[in-house]
């Protein structure tokens, strides 16, 4: 199973600042191994962030997002103690969901 994400969510003024690191190869499918065989693509395609049942960000990614992806964004309407839930799904159907509690500002 995929490794947990590392999520930081904290208040900056009235906004929730979210920074997340995901553990993923983000393999492009263009690369060859030592035997000259193409290594199949393996990458996160969808990312979704929810807060209080509402989607606050959704993304579609291609193979050129860097390995072990990093994402940073901000949304309004959250408060300390609330949960932020982040999910990703990759092209092989692997998926991962993690939560973080919003820290005070």
């Amino acid at each position: 199973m995929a490794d947990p994400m590392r999520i930081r969510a904290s208040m900056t003024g009235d906004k929730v600042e979210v920074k997340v690191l995901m553990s993923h190869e983000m393999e492009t499918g263009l690369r060859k191994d030592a035997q000259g065989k193409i290594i199949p693509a393996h990458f996160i395609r969808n990312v979704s962030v929810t807060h209080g049942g509402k989607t606050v960000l959704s993304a579609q990614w291609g193979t050129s997002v860097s390995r072990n992806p990093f994402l940073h964004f901000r949304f309004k309407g959250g408060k300390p103690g609330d949960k932020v839930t982040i999910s990703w799904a990759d092209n092989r159907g692997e998926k991962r969901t993690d939560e973080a509690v919003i820290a005070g500002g």
Partner: protein
Amino acid sequence: MRIHCLLAGMLAATLPCSALAQQDTLREIERYRQLLQDGNPAELYEARGEELWKRERGPKNASLERCDLGLGPGLVKGAYVRLPRYFADTDRVQDLESRLVTCMATLQGFTTDEAKRNPFSGTGVPMLTTDPFSGVSQRSVMTDLVAWIASESRGMKIAPSMSHPKERLAYQAGENLFYYRAGPYDFGCVTCHGEEGKRIRLQNLPKMTIAKDAQRAFGTWPGYRVSEGELRSMQWRMWECVRQMRFPELEFASDASIALITYLAKKAEGGALDAPAIKR
């Protein structure tokens, strides 16, 4: 290499050729390095390493929680900055990685060869092109453990032990090796790390014999290397420098590797550990 030349061509086509351009280059590279600091994937390795320390593994189905890294069994906080040091049970000076090999053998029942297998993430060898669409993934228990254990010394002063005669001998042997030139390129460690303020390509080279440079260099390993998408340890740093020196392969956790690390740790004494860092 192909990309190398291509790039030169591209830069040639787009950039003015002046000292100013060179200053701009250095400034922008510095800005690039700054922008990376925001999120360091080393954290992902640290999290795995902490879990692996506690996980029961090996023929003895035991965790590493009784491993003595020098401060007593199970004490991890602050252990990394006190290494390398002499260990009575092995009658040897050991750095973190060779000590972990010992613990994996004695506590978990792995053979030494098993414990040393796969010491570096990926193939260990950096991508031989600069093509970011390359990279070989393979996880390393050793690398994950190193990430977490080093992180437990973050901010602490580098203070390797120098009280045992074998520690001092390792330091002096390390100094000898640092100045040892050989191979088809006549290289030694000192070729790149003997003068202040030098660069290889655009990378700054620390002069390892002065505290300021040694502290910064030693204090930022282990580090997540964005060019390889992997976390790299101090043993890897030695192994990789030696490869580029055109020497034969430096064996993982060998006496020479530990002597070199002892020499560098002593030179970096008093600096703060800022690792795992994020690097080019």
